[in-house]
């Protein structure tokens, strides 16, 4: 309907069409990684992923049966519940509390429920979109600058708690989603641009607040260029100026000299995996990154796109991107189908969440953005991520299926002239 494209929506079920190939590629890649020789027809890792897909589908059906509206009633409750859980996890940093899983790096992201650890930030993303949508649906004060304070406060709270974990990548997903929802709901563009401008101006301040490894991750986007590295090496004082106070000068120089072996290792290897795929790919369960299981850490997880691009090349990569594009477009389409303001914002919110998360993951994998731990929805191994993705999709389909008849103005259509008159 929008963009002049008519994609088959089929009461929302059309959304599942692009999800099926993406999930299949995920399971196939996990199978190739776990058992490249093909000794068993399904390795336990791939089996686990398949079960999560089925579990996710089940979860989606449950969401559909409940209906997004009924779930929406509880949105504020769920939001604050999730914030409470994140707070509980953050508490483990200071006092030892039960059920919190700690990674070998000291990151606290999981709560253990029985045998499975669950990543609360995935749940947070869903409840956050619902809560914002439910907050914005009958209001119009967000068209004033002051009215934006509450939505931003509601965003910064979970962001801060997720940043503490630490999981900066996931935390930063919240802002673009908020902007997309506010923009779709009709917030004034100059307000939003002012906020963006303020954030850009504040960025240099953040440079001195973040950890050494985060600085190096951000620098990595530029350091992957040999030309940039050469410039820094010929002008070492430029490089020294970026040094955090806690870092020894010699160590900092070494981070530049041995960049490819140190912080650049992951990026260089990921790019090599992608590039080595060429146009048609190395073939299923083929290629150096399948053969040696140490070349690319996190290859089944955050970097799974590199493995897809390596096995199926540019064609495989484009297929994956096309699938996500279709998902986002149909999601936006669903928003136009309903006249329920809450439903509209739910559809916009989840579509943009899906789009932003996918773009972030792809950018990280091919070196267009700093390395952050963001999964590729429906593909990366991991139950929390899959369950969350299917729940989002379930909510969007639910919006497409429940279209309450509402008498009144089309929501989010503001007449600027009338407003001026009223104001």
């Amino acid at each position: 309907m929008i963009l002049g494209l008519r994609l088959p929506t089929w009461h929302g079920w059309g959304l599942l069409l692009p999800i099926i190939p993406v999930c299949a590629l995920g399971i196939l890649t996990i199978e190739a990684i776990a058992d490249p020789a093909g000794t068993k027809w399904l390795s336990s890792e791939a089996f686990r992923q398949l079960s999560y897909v089925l579990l996710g589908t089940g979860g989606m059906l449950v969401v559909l049966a409940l209906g997004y509206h009924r779930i929406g009633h509880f949105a504020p409750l769920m939001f604050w519940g999730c914030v409470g859980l994140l707070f509980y996890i953050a508490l483990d940093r200071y006092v030892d509390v039960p059920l919190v899983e700690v990674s070998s790096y000291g990151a606290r992201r999981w709560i253990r429920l029985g045998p499975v650890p669950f990543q609360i930030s995935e749940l947070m993303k869903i409840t956050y979109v619902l809560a914002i949508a439910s907050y914005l649906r009958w209001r119009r004060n967000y068209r004033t600058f002051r009215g934006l304070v509450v939505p931003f406060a509601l965003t910064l709270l979970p962001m801060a708690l997720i940043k503490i974990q630490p999981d900066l990548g996931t935390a930063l997903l919240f802002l673009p989603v908020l902007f997309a929802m506010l923009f779709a709901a009709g917030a004034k563009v100059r307000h939003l641009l002012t906020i963006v401008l303020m954030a850009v101006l504040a960025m240099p301040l953040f440079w001195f607040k973040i950890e050494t490894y985060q600085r190096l991750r951000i620098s990595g986007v530029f350091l992957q260029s040999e030309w940039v590295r050469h410039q820094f090496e010929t002008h070492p004082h430029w490089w020294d100026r970026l040094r955090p106070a806690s870092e020894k000068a010699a160590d900092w120089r070494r981070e530049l000299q041995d960049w490819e072996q140190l912080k650049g290792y992951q990026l260089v290897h990921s790019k090599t995996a992608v590039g080595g795929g060429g146009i048609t790919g190395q073939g299923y369960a083929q290629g150096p990154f399948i053969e040696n299981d140490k070349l690319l850490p996190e290859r089944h997880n955050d970097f799974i796109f590199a493995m897809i691009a390596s096995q199926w090349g540019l064609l495989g990569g484009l297929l994956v991107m096309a699938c996500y594009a279709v998902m986002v477009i149909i999601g936006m389409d669903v928003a136009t189908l309903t006249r329920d303001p809450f439903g509209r914002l739910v559809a916009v919110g989840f579509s943009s969440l899906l789009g932003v998360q996918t773009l972030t993951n792809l950018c990280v994998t091919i070196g267009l953005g700093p390395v952050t731990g963001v999964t590729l929805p429906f593909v990366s191994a991991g139950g929390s991520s899959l369950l969350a993705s299917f729940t989002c999709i379930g909510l969007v389909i639910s919006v497409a299926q429940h279209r309450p008849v509402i008498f009144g103005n089309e929501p989010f259509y503001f007449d600027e002239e009338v407003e001026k008159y009223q104001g």
Partner: protein
Amino acid sequence: MFERRLKILLIVLSVPAAAIVLRLVQLQVLEGESYAAAGKRMLARPPQYFPCLRGEIHDHEGRRLAYDAPAWDICVRYEALSGDSESLRLMARRMRLTATPAREQIDAGWQSIARLTETPIEELDDQAEVIRRRVRRIKQIVSNRRGIETPIEEEERAHAVVSGLDQNQQAVARVELAGYPWIEVVGAHARRYDGGESVGHLLGYLNEVSAADLEADPRRDDDLARYRDGDRRGIAGIEALGEQILRGRRGRRTERDTGVESIDPVEGGTFRLTIDLPLQQAVYERLAAAVKGIESATGGSAVILDVPSRQVLALVSYPGYDPNVTHAERVRLDADSKYRPLAFRAVAETYPPGSIAKPIVLAGALTSGIVTEGSSFTCSGQLFSGVADRWRCLGHHGDVSAVAAIQRSCNIYFYHVGQAMGVPNLASWMTHAGFDRPSGTGLIEEARGMLPRTDEPGPGDARNTAIGQGNVAVTPIQAANMIATIASGVYRPVTLWADDPQPRPAVPLTASRDALRAVRLGMYRAANEEHGTAYNHIHLTNTGDLVLLGKTGSAETGQGRVVEWIFDCRYADGSLDELVAANKTDLFLRYPRTRRAVEIKARSYQEFPTREMDPTHAWFAGYLTPQSRYLESSSGGRLNVAFAVLIEFGGRGGAVAAPVAGEIVQAMIDMQAHAGGPQ
């Protein structure tokens, strides 16, 4: 408006999407070829390393004291050590096992290792913990460097849990452990030592390198020579002294595009000592027999030096221990606080020298003109009439001259001398003879000894110092070198490493020729003439033209030793234990629960009977020199050796130490006669 805004949203999202597509085209189409080639290069196996043999330690005749012998290690794959079920499953797949081993099977294998090698299961657990900690540390370092959690090769490798199996043990182990595919028996090398108990302290031992060692490694920049995690280095005795010579260089095999580059391992160098093994063993036997024969004695030491070169021919401590002991056995030895078998008495323990300090004091006094050879003091058994319990002498020597004071070891004479010389002068002479300075062996165990502070001496300090008591303490090797200095008139640091490139300049003692002649005459009479303190205690045969000069010492040890302590142990739950043990090691061995104590305080055991006065340390220090010119400075020739013999808490120097010294000297003479032995 809403739809238009959604369109704008989609357009905004499509901008990064377009960038990604362009980037994919750049990486996969334009640069695809070079990335494919780079990927293949990344597949090249990391270099393989081959261990080198550690160098041998020889005695001065080339007899082998330490060497690397073929041996076998029992190795367990890390996945089984970590005990994590996920990694076990991965291991089963990597090893193509049909089923994932259950925890019971892992435990059964573990028990089998313990049974086969007769290793306590706790010790195996400790070793497993060491390995786990090491692998985790490596993983942490690699992950921190790369900024992302990185799997490492050590997580998928077998690690040695028991080392040094011999041919028979390894054959049995292979059969018994065949049912546990995650346990491997791997050929390796083990450090072996010849020479028995007499060289235990001397040779020292190896231990796994620590993080600090990796940091401080002088060859850190050489990939083939530097320490790697799990390497062993010498941390005591000669193994530590000769570490840089002995360690060698490992080999490496690297696969490159151009072919295989391989570098052979280079064996460590041989470290040759000045020690004579048969002499060392003979001295040890005599010393052992003597200490065992005296009830109060708790140990002993004997050091023999070649006078002109100051090469150490024997460096013996008793009780010793077999250098092939395991770490656990060494811990058990450490718990014996009475005999202290781990103490390297010859260089690491200091004792008051007692009367054997008198020769250097007299040489100083005569040279400084404080006394003359003819002048004498009267000895009535005590320095001050009316003070019977202090400043005593062991006899009523009457009028005592310089020579007689050495011969009969008269304390009264030396009280007067010391008082006249003063502490600074005494300390200066003693320093020139090697007291309170490094002896020259280079051993890290070496103690320096002590001299009284010269800045503010107390009233009795000079008198005490002159008879080698009070704040004077020396090691047996310093005592032997002092005697060699008297014998030759020259001070020189000792040499233990035969090929030591460090020059050892000889510093002439500033004593006058007459003073040294008087001292030597006193030492000659002490051993060979009536009224000599060692006369009749030493009977030598087949001496030929050699004569023995010497000085006895019975060094007072002051208050009794505390050989047992009361330990107050407090536990985390607030409970308390009050236990008696010799030291902390002993406490842990006797009461394993105390390892978990959060606080341990030691108190001395007041009621223990050894609070009473202990017997004296028995000393005898002397040298052999040609009879024809025994008053002159020795300058080599047959068996020109100086020595010191100490029996800890043995009693009188004359009655106890002198006979042992006599036996040792006799053994030396006999060995030399039979085989053209040392020198």
